């Protein structure tokens, strides 16, 4: 199936058409089209300042685009508040440095979405559910009582992942999940993501700079440049494209090293 035909398939969870965002005179996205399909891990790459995080924030309804349309779960989002309402229940977000609430313990952080959206749950059950999410994210039970400031970077990300999973979302947004982790920790986090995505049937929107992540766990890769999506396709197809940035990114010394290590992916 060619990339264009895939793009049109109807099982898109998030469909962005002609998105335009600007801050004052700065145009971030000119006319951006992107589909996020059910059950895939979509890696979003692009140089610094090309608007990867801005795209995520627009889909989440955290900022208002200046033009274009965003459809989420087949519903067109007219107002940012609509998106926020839908997203709060059905999507989990992992921000760059976790964004755990620093005044709450890890367990309380994970309990918070449950408390907000499932007020009918009994305290004990809520705590049990939250604890299971912490463990599912690969953290030892003793982490529950700790404050975010006491955790290492990798543990903070895992705790934030547990919070993102608390409401059993179908959709997961990740902003550079492996940034700032050591290679071993990053590889473990990638594996955790893959395992959880398979087990829970998640659809994942993943912003990353980490070539290892792209090669090991992403089903498709979307490249943002010049305010639009240059291509969204499986990695092998992207690698073949003739574009200066893509060539430098995927055929530079770092990418070559990764490719040699992991010959068969996809």
């Amino acid at each position, binding site marked *: 199936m060619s990339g264009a035909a895939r793009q049109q398939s109807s099982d898109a969870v998030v469909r962005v058409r002609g998105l335009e965002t600007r801050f004052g005179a700065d145009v971030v996205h000119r006319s951006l089209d992107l589909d996020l399909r059910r059950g*895939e891990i979509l890696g979003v790459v692009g140089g610094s300042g090309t608007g990867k995080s801005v795209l995520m924030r627009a889909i989440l309804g955290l900022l208002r685009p200046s033009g274009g349309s965003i459809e989420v779960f087949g519903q067109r989002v007219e107002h940012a508040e609509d998106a926020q309402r839908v997203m709060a229940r*059905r999507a989990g977000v992992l921000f760059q440095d976790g964004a755990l609430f*620093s005044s709450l313990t890890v367990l309380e952080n994970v309990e918070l979405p449950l408390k907000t959206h499932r007020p009918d749950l009994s305290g004990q*059950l809520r705590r049990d559910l939250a604890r299971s999410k912490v463990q599912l994210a690969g953290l030892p039970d003793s982490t529950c009582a700790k404050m*975010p400031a006491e955790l290492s970077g990798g543990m903070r990300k895992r705790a934030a992942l547990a919070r993102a999973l608390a409401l059993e979302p179908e959709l997961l947004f990740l902003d550079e999940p492996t940034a700032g982790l050591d290679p071993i920790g990053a590889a473990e986090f990638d594996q955790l993501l893959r395992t959880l995505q398979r087990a829970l049937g998640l659809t994942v929107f993943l912003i990353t700079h980490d070539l290892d992540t792209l090669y090991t766990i992403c089903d498709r890769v979307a490249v943002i440049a010049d305010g639009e999506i240059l291509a969204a396709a499986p990695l092998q197809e992207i690698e073949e494209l003739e574009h200066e940035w893509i060539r430098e990114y995927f055929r530079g010394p770092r990418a070559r090293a990764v490719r040699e290590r992991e010959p068969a992916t996809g």
Partner: protein
Amino acid sequence: MDERDREPVAQAEGTSRGPQDKAELVPDAREAGLLAARGEWVLDNIEQLNARVESLASQASRLDASGITRLDASGALLLERLFCRTGQAAGEAGLTGQWRTLFEAVDAACDDARAPEPAHEPQWRQILARIGRAAVEVFDSSRELLGFLGITVHRLGRTLLQPKRFRLTSTVHHVEATGLDAVPLLILLSGLVGAVVAFLGATVLRDFGAELFVIDLVTYAFVREFGVLLAAILLAGRTASAFCAQIGMMKLREEVDAIRTLGLDEIEVLVLPRLVALLITLPLLAFIATVSGLIGGLLVSVLSLDINLTMFLDRVEQTVTLRHYLVGMIKAPIFAVVIALIGCLEGLRVAGTAQSVGEHTTTAVVRSLTMVIVIDALAAIYFMEIGW
């Protein structure tokens, strides 16, 4: 893409979310102790399922999970509890395909042995402990402030010997931010307080036919006490908090550590410019506050009491001697040191979290205000005793 990945979601696609009563856990009539789990074991039904699990788990010996049509990690947690009870493997219970993968992932990760709740200390002991901690804290922080004063004086001395080390630009910036920008508010505040003092005085003194002494009241009050006190209170609220938050954020973002690793000294770079700036601005602000307080009093006297401008100015000239002025002004540099040091010290004590910035900013304002007022009271008593 791997078909297996998409299968579960395709099943779930047609189902709407929201409360549903399609999930069940019922005893199966065919066999004693056999429980049948059916329907959607998901977060939406979790409360109801949990109740069923709690009531039926004790009599369960075997579980038939083949009727489960949808499962998520929350539902899997409840299933895991049942399986713990029956000792079955997921496959034996008829859990297949995607749901089995999901269950096994949850089962592998979760150790459902409930951690014991931490034992709570009795209330009265907690209260006692807090009082004790607070007392120790007061002692410690006073000692810390003294130590900080010592370090700062040392650095100030070193800078005086090597004037090139002094950061003039930074100091000028802080003079503007703490001094110039505070002037309009200060004029308004002390002008109003001056007017209020004049009114109050007039109300009391009119009964004695001594309305003229309103001028003495306003003058004494502002020249000796209120001018410098109002300026110091304003700075304690406005500037101690700003210093603390600025330095606290720098501490959080490791800028203070960066200063140290670059071979600079954070006291010299951060504290000295702020201290010197306050030493310059507070006396000036105190003077402005004094003058605008007098003007406030003058306006009230001239406009609503039977006192004319010449009388007011004559009387001020007779009352204000250099001595009174010095009694007021000598406190300004002391207040400046107290406010700058407490603000900066609290900023440097920030650690870890955004909440910590908030806590230390509050402490900075509260402690600098307290110190200013206590010092002012002690000074007032002292100067009265020596007859100034």
